Structure formats: structure tokens, C-alpha cells
């Protein structure tokens, strides 16, 4: 199959189209506007829905409306504008609606800055909406993964009837890399037993997050958490390298996952036994595997372009079995391999550095 040199943003847009996205609603914001721009060209031509909404609050609610009818619906946005969608996300979870949200992170808080960042890990993974809820979060690190994980996002959202976030960032969104546009590899999921398609000839249905009955309410929330338990069993994804003999393991998600690999390659040249671990699903988080790794390796560095967000999940997974240190900064030049390697050397200690 031939490869195309394409940006992460456009790759996500094309992959969503290939996954059968019926409707796309969004409001432009840097650095993800190229997604909407790309879809504005191809969606109407294919007879599918494209609306440049009047606000992000409108776009997430349009997505909810479309999803309730059984359509595959998506929106995309960035940081401060995704803050505006938090109420909608909580409703979508409560309504058990499948939808895909592409989050292309820039710096924050507030209006922040248009430079790439990873400061919305917490926003995506723990969320800002109300209630007991979780959202599946997939974090690509290459343009090819932008394609593959966007496909997966549509599938998982339908499979679990839950929103899925693809967590990209401004660097991955704007950089180009060769990618293959494979056919949507997942089965279509039947939604005829819940979608609102007109009640003629059948019992009317309701989609709502409100339940005025204590017992039923608690049952509904338990049902959500049964789904999350199922996700934790079946959907965890991660990428690891050289962990078998590692004296230190570098952990990062998304684009930073590339830089820890560069640091590992550089360190291994000097005989420093570095391994890397990159969670691909941020929820469900690869707790079990990290815990296993901490049985053997006693030093972990979490590298993030933020002030320390994923580190909390790594610490929970490792549960005191190993030393965990965060390195990062809020935005600007990304931590490069020499900086990461220097931190690894400091953590390993002078004696170790002298012995290799």
C-alpha cells in the first residue's frame, strides 16, 4: 500500500472519514483547525454532515444529538475550548452515547498559548465534567497512529456506548510524516436496539442521564462502572522497549514517547541500560504492566510536556515499589534526548555512570 506524506491533523480527519463518520461539528481553534478544514471539503461531497458550529458548547451538543440517532459523530478542538465541552461530555456518558472527540493540546491554563503542550492529560483522563464517569483516552505518537487510533476510537465508542478522546498535540497535529490509509478494520456495531430513529411501529425510547429513583440511579452508575472494568480487562494498550534488562525505565505518552526512545537509543550507545514504556490507552491505564515492571526495575522517569500529570497514574500503578521522578516543562522546546538522558544519569547516580 502506498504511503502519503500528511500532517497528524489531516490524517485524523481522513481516518475519521474512512471510519464512516457521518457527522462532524466543530468550531475552529489553533492548532487543530486543519481537521475541520479538511473535512469541510470531503464531508459535503460524500453527502455527510459538516457544520461549523457557533461555539464549542453548540458543537458538543450537536454531536450528542447526532449520536442519539445512531450516527457516527465527531468533534475536534483544543485545550481551552475543550473546557467548554465538559458538561456535554458528562451528559454523553450519562446518556451512554458513542462519540469521538479529538483533542489537540496547546498550552494553558485559560487562553494559554498556541504552542504545543501536553498539559491536558488530566482534562482528558480525569475530566472536568460532573459525576462518576470515565472516558476512553487514546494517545497517538506518530501520524500512522493518528490514523489507526482514530479508527479504534470510532469502534470503541460504538462498542461501549461511551465517548472516546483521541489525545493529540499541536506538534503531532502539524508535523507531517508518511502514513498508510488502511481500510477501517473493525466490525460495524448494531445500534438498532437503542438509537432514536422514529418510534413508528415500536415502543418509544428515551435517552437521558436523569433517573429520579435512587435504586435505578445507582444501578445505572454501576452499569457504567461494569463497562469500565470491562475496558480495563480488554482494551489496555502500551508500547515498551528494552524493559527486560533495564536499570531505569522512561515513561511518556503521545509525542514525548518518541523522545524517550531517542534518549534510550543514545543511552544504550554508552552502555546505560534504559528501557521505555509508552501507555497508548491513558484510560484504561496500563497499571498491571507497570506494576510488573516495577518488580524488577527500581527507577522510573516520567517525561511530559507539562508540570506533572501522568506521573500520578504512574505512581498509583507502581504503588511505592520503585522510585518515580517527573521531568517536564509547560510548553516551548520539547525535552530532547540529551536532557532526558542527563536526568536518567542523575537518577542512576555517579557510581553507575562511572561503571558503564
Amino acid at each position: 500500500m502506498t504511503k502519503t506524506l500528511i500532517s497528524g491533523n489531516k490524517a485524523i480527519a481522513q481516518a475519521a472519514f474512512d471510519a464512516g463518520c457521518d457527522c462532524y461539528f466543530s468550531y475552529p481553534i489553533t492548532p487543530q483547525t486543519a481537521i475541520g478544514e479538511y473535512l469541510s471539503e470531503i464531508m459535503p461531497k460524500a453527502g455527510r454532515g459538516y457544520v461549523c458550529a457557533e461555539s464549542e458548547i453548540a458543537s458538543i451538543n450537536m454531536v450528542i444529538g447526532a449520536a442519539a440517532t445512531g450516527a457516527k459523530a465527531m468533534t475536534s478542538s483544543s485545550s481551552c475550548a475543550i473546557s467548554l465541552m465538559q458538561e456535554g461530555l458528562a451528559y454523553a456518558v450519562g446518556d451512554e452515547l458513542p462519540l469521538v472527540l479529538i483533542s489537540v493540546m496547546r498550552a494553558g491554563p485559560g487562553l494559554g498559548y498556541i504552542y504545543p503542550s501536553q498539559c491536558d492529560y488530566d482534562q482528558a483522563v480525569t475530566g472536568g465534567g460532573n459525576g462518576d464517569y470515565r472516558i476512553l483516552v487514546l494517545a497517538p505518537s506518530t501520524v500512522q497512529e493518528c490514523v489507526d487510533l482514530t479508527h479504534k476510537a470510532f469502534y470503541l465508542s460504538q462498542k461501549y456506548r461511551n465517548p472516546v478522546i483521541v489525545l493529540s498535540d499541536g506538534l503531532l497535529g502539524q508535523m507531517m510524516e508518511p502514513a498508510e490509509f488502511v481500510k477501517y478494520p473493525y466490525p460495524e456495531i448494531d445500534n438498532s436496539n437503542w438509537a432514536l430513529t422514529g418510534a413508528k411501529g415500536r415502543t418509544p425510547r428515551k435517552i437521558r442521564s436523569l433517573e429520579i429513583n435512587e435504586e435505578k440511579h445507582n444501578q445505572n452508575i454501576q452499569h457504567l462502572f461494569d463497562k469500565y472494568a470491562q475496558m480495563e480487562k480488554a482494551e489496555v494498550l502500551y508500547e515498551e522497549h528494552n524493559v527486560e534488562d533495564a536499570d531505569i525505565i522512561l515513561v511518556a505518552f503521545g509525542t514525548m514517547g518518541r523522545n524517550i526512545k531517542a534518549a534510550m537509543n543514545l543511552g544504550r550507545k554508552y552502555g546505560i541500560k534504559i528501557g521505555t514504556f509508552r501507555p497508548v490507552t491513558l484510560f484504561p491505564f496500563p497499571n498491571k504492566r507497570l506494576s510488573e515492571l516495577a518488580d524488577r526495575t527500581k527507577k522510573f522517569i516520567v517525561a511530559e510536556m507539562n508540570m506533572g500529570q501522568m506521573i500520578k497514574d504512574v505512581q498509583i500503578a507502581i504503588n511505592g515499589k520503585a522510585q518515580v521522578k517527573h521531568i517536564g516543562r509547560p510548553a516551548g522546546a520539547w525535552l530532547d534526548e540529551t536532557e532526558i538522558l542527563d536526568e536518567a544519569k542523575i537518577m542512576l547516580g555517579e557510581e553507575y555512570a562511572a561503571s558503564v
Partner: protein
Amino acid sequence: MEQSIIIAGFGGQGVLSAGIILANSFMLNDKQVTWYPCYGAEMRGGAVNCEIVVSDTEVTSVHKKETDILIALNDLSFNKFLSKVKSGGIVIANATLIEKKYPREDVKYIFENISDTARELGSIKAANMVSLGILSNICNFTDIKSIKQAIDMVLPQKIRELNYKVLDAGIKLSESCRKE
């Protein structure tokens, strides 16, 4: 083996499209490649640059602290990015707009009249292709055939002939500095 290239200049000098053409030519040679544009307020009429990383194996980090090759199309970018060039690296500089100077002794300078060459052949806007012609002579990851193929993939039909011509002129200019 991995190599990184920064192309920098004014908006309008074809900095980003030269990078995209180069990156496509690497892809046509079955290399792994990333192209990353400079992002910020600079994009509005001022300085612009892009960074290309090419490798035989997977490209890891995209945004490097140091670069192997710098193509500087104006004085501003020469001054801004010279310090990013690795010791032993190469600087291709547009002598039409940059006064010849050699502030560092550990890099190799190739000063050529890039903008003038493009202007004489029909359009100053094609200066970017002169610089790619020069680069094709010193970079082992690509060749003139795949750059021409990449031009076909990226540029509209009506300006392709001009760009081939300017590219060839760039190769000629740099025949003194062959691939090592």
C-alpha cells in the same frame, strides 16, 4: 543513520513547500521522515522555518536541539540558526541576501547566489528550488530524480517546468561541493 535539516527564511520564499518537497523525496526513497513547521506569531509575514528529520530507521524525536544541515535563505535566519548547526555540519546560505561571513570555524559554509539565480531563470519565488538543488549534491538520502518526482506531487502543473529548471541550476551551482 539519521540526519536533520532546517530550512529557514522569510514568508514567501517557499521555505515550507521546499521542506515538503524534500520530505516527499525522502519518502520516495523509502526513508522514514518527519517535517515540522515553525509555529508561532512569526508566521504572519516574518521569519518562517521548517525542520526535516530523515532516517533509515524510525524517526524518534522530531524537534531537535541541533541540526546537521541549515539552509538559510535570509540574513535573519542565518544569524538565528547558525548556533543550532552541529559541529562539522553544513550551512547553505543565500549570498544574494546574506553578506559572506564565517562566524564559526567548525561548520562548512556554501554561499551561493540563490535568489539571483532564481530571478534570472524567471522567478525569484523559486529560490527554494535552487537551495534544494544544492542540497541534493551533499545529502545522501535523496537524489535529483526523486526531488523532481516530489515536485510533481506537490506543485501545480503550470509551475513545474520552471522549478525543474531552477533545481538544475542549483545542482550546477554546487558541483564543486559533491556528496562525500
